[in-house]
């Protein structure tokens, strides 16, 4: 109801508010940029900080400030971003000299790949069943599987450690009746891959169930008539068509295991590469009783994170290409 004259009399704030109400897109766009910048800063700053630490020579790590004072036309001010105190790229080499860090990376990589393969194969079978077959009790069973992922992993550590230690036979609960004596799995990949697979399985099953459930029945029928079994149809038709889902489940599992420390720090009884200690175990090896080489720990962290960065970039392309190639048409 405001006339043009009224408008002229109103202050700049009122005019700005009115223009925002009339053009909400402008506000949304502004908020989008604010949110983007916020997330970029919070995710990228830690990496930058690691880089600063890694290239700073170890002698200067604890002396002085990372925030240099700069002289701005006679006015001295503190530069708002930390900068390295010196330049020592050799840290990225000594990372491998002091500790066989590549072996720790290999451990993590091997554990992650093995777990991912197991999870994708088993979760595919489960996803096929939950996504494409109708049977009584399906919902309850699915809920039960998801419930596994709601447990804190720590709840499983003590019983699992006892089992994997292989010292005493497993007995029937509340009795002394022995069932079997498990093999000693501590310090082997088995003691880590098994619990990882179990813990990360529910999420993958959930993702794959959703994807496999969306593949039209006709395609599976066609594959079966053409000469595959149900399993063959799953691996030849349903899985390739669900590539984005499979990639998502695989990447999530891989990253989760690659970054895992809690279980492996317990199942590997010391931080030695030969005992299948993972990357974090390697990073902690730069810390001794008397010294902590923060620059090497930072450099190792950066090196350790590189494979995941590469994987995500590659997989993301796959996921995006899977999504943009259009909704699935028969």
């Amino acid at each position, binding site marked *: 109801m405001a006339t043009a004259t009224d408008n002229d009399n109103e202050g700049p704030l009122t005019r700005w508010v009115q223009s925002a109400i009339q053009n909400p897109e402008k506000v949304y766009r502004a908020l989008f940029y604010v949110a983007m910048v916020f997330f970029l800063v919070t995710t990228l700053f830690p990496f930058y900080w690691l880089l600063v630490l890694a290239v700073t020579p170890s002698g200067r790590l604890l002396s002085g400030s990372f925030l240099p004072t700069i002289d701005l036309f006679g006015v001295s001010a503190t530069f708002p971003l930390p900068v390295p105190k010196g330049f020592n790229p050799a840290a990225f080499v000594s990372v491998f000299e002091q500790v066989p860090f590549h072996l720790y990376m290999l451990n993590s990589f091997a554990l992650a790949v093995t777990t991912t393969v197991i999870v994708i194969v088993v979760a595919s079978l489960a996803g096929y069943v939950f996504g494409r077959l109708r049977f009584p009790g399906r919902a309850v069973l699915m809920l039960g599987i998801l419930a596994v992922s709601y447990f804190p992993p720590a709840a499983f550590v003590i019983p699992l450690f006892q089992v994997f230690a292989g010292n005493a036979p497993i007995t029937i609960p509340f009795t002394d009746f022995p069932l079997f004596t498990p093999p000693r799995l501590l310090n082997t990949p088995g003691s880590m891959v098994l619990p990882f697979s179990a813990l990360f399985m529910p999420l993958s099953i959930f993702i794959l169930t959703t994807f496999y459930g969306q593949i039209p029945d006709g395609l599976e029928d066609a*594959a079966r*008539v*053409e000469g595959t079994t149900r399993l063959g149809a799953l691996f030849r038709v349903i899985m390739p068509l669900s590539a984005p889902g499979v990639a998502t489940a695989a990447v999530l599992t891989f990253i989760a295991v690659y970054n895992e420390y809690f279980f492996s720090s317990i199942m590997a009884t010391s931080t030695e590469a030969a005992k299948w200690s993972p990357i974090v175990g390697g990073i902690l090896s730069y810390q001794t009783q008397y010294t902590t080489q923060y620059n090497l720990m930072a450099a190792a962290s950066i090196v350790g994170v590189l494979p995941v960065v590469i994987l995500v970039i590659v997989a993301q392309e796959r996921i995006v290409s899977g999504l943009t190639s259009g909704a699935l048409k028969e």
Partner: protein
Amino acid sequence: MAKLKLEHVTKRYDDQGETVTAVDDMNLDIDHGEFICFVGPSGCGKSTTMETVAGLTIPTEGKVYIGDRDVTNLPPKDRGIAMVFQNIALFPHMDVYDNISFGLRLRDYPTDEIDRRVERAADIVQLEGMLGRMPEEMSGGQRQRVAIARAIVREPDVFLMDEPLANLDAKLKVHMRTELQRLHKELDTTIIYVTHDQEEAMTLSDRIAVLNSGSLQQIAPPLTCYNEPDNLFVAGFIGSPSMNFVEGTVESDAIVTKNFSLAFDPASVDGVGVGDSVTIGIRPEDIYPGGLRGEIADHSALIDARTDILEPMGDEIFAYMLLGEGETSMSQEQASSDQLLVSIDPDSDITEDEDVQVVIDRGNVHLFDTASGEALTHTLEAAWSGDEVTESEAESDD
């Protein structure tokens, strides 16, 4: 290349505690090289029957034989069948060549043999030069042809086609229909074809199997289904537009309906007695304007009617006629005793809301038992000596 036999095939589903019978005691004997159409309304069990043949559904009871083999419990891949699906079901992640050769590659055929067969199949369905395309780059008709090529490349014993033309536009449908006929001639393979389109069934098949609510109503050559339907359902389903049904009662010398009567001798047809409720079935083309009655050997008495709606089709006009005090019927079925659908010569100058007289060709009147729906006779010609003809000729002498 084989016979196909269904023996007492029954399929029941358990739907939330309720048992649904999709296919009820189906018995079929199909000869080598026959083109059989399963027709019926949605949910009549025709697709389920086909799935039991394909092996995608295992029947609850009964046996399926292909050739001399009992294939009831064999998986689809071991049955020697190929199938074309309603939604075409090409593998979207494979190009045309890979789609067509999928079955051959699974069976480890040598590469040159696969190449040769794919080339030939592509040749038959006229897809030369498109082997490198992806399904999404093709039109509906082309995809359909890829699906057919994928089916014929394996040289199966039995072809199953589940409404393969349902998703195509009308023009393409007619074209593909001709292609399928040519293909059948060329391949000489047993083909089972599911459709809800009775026109497709009429034009394509050697025999039509009409299904309703899970049971077989009639299996016969198309013209037999058309001219001698076994029961009310087949009579109403086959033919477009469908048959007029008028309910009446048998009296000693005629069948009397609400608005007209047809001379009839109950003794001439087995199983008909005075007082029985019968349904008269008359196809639109067997009703003529009264002026043409001289051309019909055995016609009924003149029936007063009033035209309601006219549907000019070009080669004929479908005229909905109201009998007696009849109101326009809103019901889908023509079972209304007050309405007749008549096919008229397009040159006649008939208008809407015009009082006319029509006659029925008694030689093509079908009689059904109203209670059971079973056909009693497909002509009244033999059922009457001809007295009535003289009578009505006397009328027309003016």
